[in-house]
């Protein structure tokens, strides 16, 4: 067969180097071409990751046994010889950036699997890559200073068969620097400064949100084919809101990043919530940050230590149990005493009388008061049982106002009682006592001291927060409450006003462990009505106006743009089939009961919509599979579209 010249650009020779020309015949297979190329370059290196990229056709020549003829390559082909794995800047849900080598030759689905393996995130099928929203270029300097965590040195071979070392993949154990990267991945970030939140792009409407979903990469094609270049920046995000089998023990990074994504969704109002819910989210963030700081070792979990730890814990519990009858009970009997002069006021009853001072005594879940300390041995003037009552703070540190508002249930209704404390110390103790009592716990409860602590730290926040924000959230006392809520509330409330509201919500979560707090955050997030909706602007067949299609884990919803109302809901389990007409970019879906819908996609490619639907259907099949292995083939079948054929 006749030989002809094929010129190939070899990336390793540098961008300006001329192409290498080799003499080939059409029946030479790709492997042979590569061999000749390598010989010709005379370079000693590991070429195993390299492959040929055919520029005009935008495809990799990965089948080394195929001949040039079979690929249809002629002398005019522009070929590039380069590594399949290239560095990529990856924005994580936490907002941090890592640089790592990702596969540019496999479908994105597999690329993501590789990335997740490297980062130690289970269930990579739930994540995907998307093009970032362009940042406003004003702050160029800031971009430069952004810290990038470098993972490019991780040998690819070690990633392919991850083994755990100290609970983290072995490649993170190589150096302190790598351990630092793992810590960044697995520990929640401190609350961002309010300006940072304010500066971020926030979608203002459903249509805005729908634009974001036009940015998802096609998971059945490779990065090169989608115009992604070496060192480009992409976002790694959870795409399918169907989180399978979260196991805190193995999912340290996954859980952390999921929390980060949820937190930012809340802070940026990507998902709407009510004010009460926002306060609870704020309280949880505060708590998570506090606990993460105090027990960071928990997060860099390491299997061996974990076991040891849990063993120790259970031992502790056992011992507690054993001794419970004696020491515990003794302790119970020696519950901390709390009595002092306080002022009481009953707003509804004797309005004219104002605050009166009495000697107060805390007993169990009740407070009693007496005329004076001396008379405290006798019958109290009144005893108030606080169990089931509502406790609200009314505090102004600057004005030295420390008021506890109690709403005490009684058969006749709720009685309002205010207790006025003299100072911070007194207030923290009584407030803590009241809070515990309202939950039916006595002062002997182990949480009494920590409750006092948290009340004091919130008071401290009120003191320091009057100024603008402090960027460093080094100590939990100095958190600016504006860091915990979306910008809408920055305008609505001053940090000082926000503090008591968050503290109020905080009392219900203050005792949670780090993992429980993270899980609670995710649960509340998932319970929001709009949770899990990805929006796309579409044009229904026969309709003249744009409407929004919401894609949820179990259903599709049609939203009227004018009113914002859900017009119609279709559930996947009623779906018989769906088709895509790639030529006219229209999707047609048939549901049981002869319901047919068809629409064209406006803000996103219909491949994206197709992939979303197929992806969710794939996610729902997972539970039935016992094995841990990912059924990649099925995923491609469901999401691939014509490429799958």
């Amino acid at each position, binding site marked *: 067969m006749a030989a002809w010249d094929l010129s190939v650009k070899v990336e390793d020779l540098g961008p300006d180097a001329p192409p290498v020309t080799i003499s080939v015949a059409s029946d030479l297979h790709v492997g042979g071409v590569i061999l000749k190329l390598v010989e010709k370059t005379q370079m000693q290196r590991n070429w195993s990751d390299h492959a040929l990229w055919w520029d005009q056709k935008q495809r990799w020549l990965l089948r080394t046994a195929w001949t040039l003829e079979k690929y249809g390559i002629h002398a005019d082909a522009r070929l590039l010889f380069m590594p399949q794995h290239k560095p990529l800047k990856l924005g994580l849900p936490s907002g941090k950036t890592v640089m790592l080598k990702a596969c540019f030759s496999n479908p994105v689905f597999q690329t993501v699997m590789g990335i997740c393996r490297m980062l130690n995130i289970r269930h990579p099928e739930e994540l995907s890559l998307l093009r970032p929203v362009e940042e406003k270029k004003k702050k160029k300097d800031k971009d430069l200073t952004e810290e990038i965590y470098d993972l490019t040195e991780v040998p690819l071979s070690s990633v392919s068969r991850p083994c755990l070392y100290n609970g983290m993949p072995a490649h993170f154990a190589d150096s302190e620097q790598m351990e630092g990267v793992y810590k960044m991945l697995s520990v929640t970030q401190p609350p961002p400064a309010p300006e940072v939140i304010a500066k971020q792009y926030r979608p203002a409407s459903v249509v805005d949100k729908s634009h974001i979903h036009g940015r998802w990469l096609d998971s059945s094609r490779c990065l090169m084919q989608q115009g992604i270049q070496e060192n480009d920046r992409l976002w790694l995000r959870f795409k399918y809101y169907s989180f399978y089998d979260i196991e805190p023990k193995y999912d340290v990074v996954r859980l952390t990043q999921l929390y980060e994504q949820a937190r930012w969704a809340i802070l940026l109002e990507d998902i709407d*919530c*009510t004010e*009460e819910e926002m306060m609870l989210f704020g309280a949880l963030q505060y708590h998570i940050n506090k606990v993460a700081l105090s027990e960071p070792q928990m997060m860099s979990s390491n299997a061996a230590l974990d076991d040891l730890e849990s063993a120790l814990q259970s031992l502790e519990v056992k011992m507690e149990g054993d001794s419970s009858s004696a020491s515990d009970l003794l302790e119970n*009997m020696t519950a901390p005493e709390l009595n002092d002069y306080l002022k009481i006021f009953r707003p509804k009853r004797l309005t004219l009388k104002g605050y009166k001072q009495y000697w107060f005594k805390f007993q169990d879940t009740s407070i009693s008061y007496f005329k004076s300390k001396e008379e405290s041995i006798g019958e109290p003037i009144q005893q108030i049982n606080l169990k089931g009552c509502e406790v609200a703070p009314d505090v102004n540190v600057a004005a030295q106002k420390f008021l506890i508002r109690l709403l005490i*249930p009684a058969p006749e209704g709720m009685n309002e009682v205010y207790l006025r404390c003299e100072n911070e110390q007194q207030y923290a103790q009584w407030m803590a006592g009241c809070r515990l009592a309202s939950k039916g716990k006595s002062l002997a409860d182990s949480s009494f001291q920590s409750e006092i602590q948290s009340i004091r730290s919130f008071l401290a926040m009120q003191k320091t927060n009057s100024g603008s924000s402090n960027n460093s959230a080094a100590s939990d006392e100095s958190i600016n409450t504006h860091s915990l809520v979306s910008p809408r509330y920055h305008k609505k409330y001053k940090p000082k006003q926000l503090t008591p509201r968050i503290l109020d919500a905080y009392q219900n979560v203050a005792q949670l462990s780090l993992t429980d707090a993270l899980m609670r955050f995710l649960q509340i997030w998932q319970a929001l009505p709009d949770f899990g909706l990805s929006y796309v602007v579409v044009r229904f067949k026969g309709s003249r106006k744009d409407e929004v299609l919401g894609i949820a884990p179990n259903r599709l919803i049609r939203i009227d743009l004018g009113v914002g109302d859900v017009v119609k809901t279709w559930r996947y389990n009623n779906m018989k089939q769906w088709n895509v007409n790639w030529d006219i970019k229209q999707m047609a879906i048939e549901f049981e009961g002869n319901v047919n819908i068809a629409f064209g996609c406006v803000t996103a490619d219909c491949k994206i919509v197709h992939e979303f639907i197929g992806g969710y259907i794939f996610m729902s099949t997972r539970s039935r599979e016992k094995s841990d292995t990912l059924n990649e083939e099925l995923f491609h079948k469901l999401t691939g579209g014509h490429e799958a054929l």
Partner: protein
Amino acid sequence: MDDIDAMFSDLLGEMDLLTQSLGQETEPPEPLPSTRQEINFSVGFTGLNASLHDLEDNDLDALMADLVADLSETEKKLEAEIQGLNAPPSSSSDLPPPPKGLGVQPASSITSPPSPGNNRSSSVTTPSSSTSSPLPPPQSSKPTMEEIEAQMKADKIKLALEKLKEAKVKKLVVKVVMNDGSSKTLMVDERQTVREVLDNLFEKTHCDCNVDWSLCETNHELQLERTFEDHENLVEPLLAWTRDSENKVLFQERKDKFEVFKNPQNFYLWKKDKKTLKDMKDKDKELLVQENFCGTSIIVPDLEGVLHLKEDGKKSWKQRLFQLRASGIYYVPKGKTKSSRDLICFVQFDNVNVYYGKDVKNRYKAPTDFCFVLKHPQIQKESQYIKYLCCDDAWTMNLWVTGIRIAKYGASLHENFKTAERKAAVSAAVWTNRSTPSSSSPSTPSPTIRAKTATQANGHAPKPQPGPPHQGIGNLPAPPPLNEILPPPPPDPILPPPPPSLASKPPLSNFPPPPLSMDGLPPPPPPPPMDNFSEDPPDFLPPPPPPTSYSSLPPPPPAPAANFGGNINKSLPPPPPNPEFLPPPPPDPVFVASGAPPPPPPPPPPAAVSAPRPAAQQKKMPPAPPKRTTPTLQGGGGGGGDFMSELMSAMRKRTDQ
């Protein structure tokens, strides 16, 4: 020693408290029909005495049984614990048998209750055993003190502490109104969940145990009603009732209780047309339950609609657009959009319960009668803090109430349903041998235990009492609990050392003769081992007695109330009925079938028990069934004493008459 004495006197003080609280909180059991009508009491008693005196005999009996059972349980547990602590080697062997008692007890007034130990304890017995039954009769108490070792002292302290803790456990005697208008009286302690009480009621009635059976609370004054959730504790809400309250606890089938799990589409897809909902396939229903209850987060049906609201004590009703979210109920303020951030929080669920309102049209001029109410559980009277919401139809009301329950109770609801389903399935398959998940497995004699027993056995082993019923029992695997049930006061007689080896299982049968007899009363009828037996099983390991055993039992005295029959049979020894008391009804075969074979659940309703026994003997109660399934502590231990003596005197009085 002084310390110990001090400890015990403290303990006694606590007991007093307990008794008082018992008295106050007790709801008067319903008087038996035939007997005096005067007895109709209302809920609140002025004092213990009053309440006790007012109690019907049978109620007393039942109550006693419960109490004793409690005591014994506690003790058992204690002993087990103690035993664990004490090295087996304890010198126990030296110990003098039973009476060792506590020097502490000098206060004869306390007298106690009696529980000679439980089998278990006996078997296990530790030196402490004596301690364990602190309440034993005073007389015996002191002598042995000197011999007690330092360790015992420690044990005692511990015991005392434990008792103190126990003493704080609240118990209520609750009258439950059945479907047919009759009622049953139960003793419920504050650790019991509604589920446990329901199981208990299943044992006592012959219902089909389907998942719809519920306990409901009605508030007479406010005309409200709600179904207790199975995981709730029953005592707590009842404590909120006022003394003169006419509130009731009902035992009835409520379709709405678990409807959301049977037809989730009606709640989660309520916007769809009725036909689609009706034709929903089971597979799809399952999927809905999965989606909404089995994920990481519980999903609340998204309800939204215009409701009529009456709040703040105002008389008028105004309309608002409400929305249900997991975090509470919200409304859309005037002139605002429905977007989440504009919503105003109307109520969060932490501190309120949801009720159905009755007769609101008349009472409050409501636009419709389909009203649900949100209020703090402690509010019992008209108040501005009660929020009334009216829906246009019953369907909508149901949607909201169920939605609120899902938001408030979350995963617990689903758990409750699954438990109820299991329960229904089990009961459906006739109770052949119901294996009790007994936590009490220990009751079965394990070799180790025995060994220990041997040493210490003297102390408390329950003495076997020859009761007719026993035979049946004997065969049974052990119903350990009975021992505990000992009759109250008569200390010495009771104490007789139990047979060591047997102790573990058979103990029940061996009841000490009821102390009462001492009083000159007619010989007490044999304790109804059966009762205990039947009831105990759940707690205790012993396998449930085969039905056959029952047959062997002596003829059960008929229960006055048909309902109770079941229990009665088992418990009753041949009744020596007093004329005054109702003649015991002939045993119902029925009961046997249903109730007897399977070991009934824990607490026996007092009423049932009492009925059978003749007055004289009433006191001796059949061994009370241990009620709580896995009770860790039992409450009454300490307190029991006082209460017991009160009970005794009350009974005596009656008999004297």
